[in-house]
């Protein structure tokens, strides 16, 4: 219902542009600049200045405490041989590969369930979106308790189903910890994918579906030939957000495993955090951060290119 509104409004916007008030709008461009100035100032102060500052720090041996000196490109030159960093990169790629597909699939299925304006749809939408609102940090703290051997709900449930003896120590094993955290993340963030896809689904004209139905198309055929192609942009956006989120994963690992056992569940952001605030090597950590920024930008650009609309 709401998704249809902007489409009807698009025509009137075009009409306004063509009106005699065009000159007035040009005059107002300075007003517009003034209006965005606070936001611009915010970005300059809190994004651009720190970014330039970070570039400066990356050329130093900046310790957390005490004086520093410029060391040129030493921090960057050390990155290729930084085994801890590359292990974390490898783990991050693995984690991203594990969760991206399920997040999209679960989000899509939830959107399918709640897209029709049936009775209870609103309640279901709220329920599905609720974990995302609660946030991964809070969910992680809950999981600390619920994954306890012998007493946590996860173990009691598995014990009740006869799958385990209820004593599984999830966070003492890298694979088990990764599996449980991946499940938590899929549950926690699929709601966002659902909302993004839902908006796209509701923008598909009902008439198209109805005529396909009259032509004898099955549900799956309509979904594959009508809905999916028209969801290209929302799916692309969901994937990009999901991949960026996975690349920058931190809180769930920090809270649940601290990167352990050993460094078996250390994603790249946690590795950088440890470099800065545990090893106290802020210069090195900043250089690694800049590399991460570059990698995320490249991956995002690649995704945009791969998922672009083809004429």
């Amino acid at each position, binding site marked *: 219902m709401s998704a249809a509104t902007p489409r009807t409004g698009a025509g009137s916007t075009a009409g306004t542009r063509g009106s005699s008030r065009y000159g007035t709008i040009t005059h107002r461009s300075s007003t517009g600049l003034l209006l965005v100035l606070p936001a611009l100032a915010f970005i*300059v*102060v809190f994004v*651009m*200045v*720190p*970014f*330039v*500052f970070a*570039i*400066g*720090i990356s050329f130093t041996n900046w*310790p*957390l*405490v*005490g*004086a520093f000196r410029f060391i040129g490109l030493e921090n960057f030159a050390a990155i290729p041989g930084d085994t801890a960093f590359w292990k974390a990169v490898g783990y991050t790629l693995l984690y991203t590969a594990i969760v991206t597909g399920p997040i999209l699939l679960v989000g899509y299925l939830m959107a399918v369930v709640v897209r029709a304006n049936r009775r209870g749809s609103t309640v279901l939408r709220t329920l599905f979106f609720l974990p995302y609102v609660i946030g991964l940090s809070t969910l992680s703290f809950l999981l*600390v308790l619920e994954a*306890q*051997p*012998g007493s946590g709900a996860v173990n009691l449930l598995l014990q009740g189903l006869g799958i385990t003896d209820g*004593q599984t*120590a999830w*966070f*003492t094993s890298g694979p088990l910890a990764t599996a449980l955290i991946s499940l938590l993340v899929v549950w926690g963030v699929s709601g966002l994918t659902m909302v993004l896809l839902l908006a796209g689904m509701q923008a598909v004209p009902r008439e198209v579906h109805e005529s396909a139905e009259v032509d004898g198309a099955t549900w799956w055929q309509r979904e594959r030939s009508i809905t999916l192609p028209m969801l290209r942009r929302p799916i692309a956006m969901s994937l990009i957000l999901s991949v960026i989120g996975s690349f920058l994963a931190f809180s769930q690992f920090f809270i649940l*495993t*601290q*990167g*352990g*056992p*050993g*460094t078996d569940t*250390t994603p790249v952001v946690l590795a950088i955090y*440890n470099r800065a*605030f*545990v*090893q*106290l090597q802020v210069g090195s950590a900043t250089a690694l951060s800049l590399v991460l920024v570059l990698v995320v930008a490249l991956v995002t650009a690649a995704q945009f290119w791969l998922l672009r609309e083809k004429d």
Partner: protein
Amino acid sequence: MRSRREFLALAGLAGVTPLLASCGSGVLPAPDTAAPGFGEGATGVLRLWARSDTQTGTQAVVDAFHASQDRIRVELTPVLGTQYVTKLATAIRARAVPDLLAMNDIDTILFIVRDVFTDLTELVAQLPGRERLSPGQLDLSTLDERVYGLPFLADNSVLWHNTELMDRAGVDPSTALTSLEGCLDAARAVRELGADTYGWSLAANASGIIGFVTQPHTWAADTDVITGEVGSQRGAVEGNQALRAVLEHHRTMWAEGLMPQANFSDTGTSWGSDFTAGTVGLLPGNYFAAVMGQDEAVTSRTGVSLLPGPTGGSAFFTGGDNLCIPRGAQNASAAWEFTKFALEVEQQSKLPAGGYFPVRSDAATDEYRATYPLAVAPLEQIDTGYAPRTLSYNLLYNQPDSPYFEMFRRAVFDGDVDGAMASAQARYDRVLEQAQR
């Protein structure tokens, strides 16, 4: 285009300016501790940072200080323990430091080597009762015989035992718990009391706790896992017979089922709960884990001794907080006045009420012994307290991937003592070499 260029230039300048400003920052000026009247009759606000982990103990002393005078108001800021080093470093770089720091004693050396704390050597020399202070804890804030911080409250690791289980198992704690060999026999005897009764308990998946409670066994044999002075240290793992005996002791206890299975995954959330429930004979731990919040029924069946070495000797971990005055402190005189107050016997003897041990041996008065009988052991042998003074404590012991923790788990749960020690030696050397560059 011109405006765009100007904008970028402005952004660049804004970014570089603080960098340049930081370049010329240098160290903050040290307060004049030799000034007449320093530390006496001070006035104004005293800004004190406390670790959130030990806030209750600090707050109690602050309340007593307020009750004792009305010239100085203490503004207490609790700082999350895991963020303390970062926040303090940031404050120092911003040249906006508090007047006094109650901080984790093992972290003080990180700042002392950077020359950002006030040298208190002359003041400490005149301090009444200086010779009674915990030498291990004092040593953590001493460099090149100069003192930069004073012990404030202690969080020590000791060996708790269940007297009822010991009686039933026919174990005499006064003789059996003087060596790891004796402890092992005691644990075996307790284990035989029943299927749900265990000899020993350990939060074996908590890196910090493992370092806290198992290292003293090695120190009791007059050896450490690190060797050398701060700045040129290396690992002393391979060939360390005391350490090997400690690892083998724990391996034996695990292999023989003397420890509960839940120990394997306990991250410290249930540390001590099995002991206070009465199902465990021996618990290495702190006052919080075994005594705080327990009723008379539990404390009356609890006994305490220091952590023994493999064949004798004893030691304990001198954890806790030290008080340091950062260079640049605005009200250092008030900070020193508070420090002197906090170290008085009257204040120190009340610390167990908040879960901590005093840091001076003469706090164990007759009244104290009667009130806190389970908080006396470390004070009676305060010289045996120790903690390693190193720039890499957190990396070596507290992190989940720390070499000590990894070695301990590999040796105890996988049974590979030799492999664990060889691997740890290399990692100790690498971590220390990186930190000391």
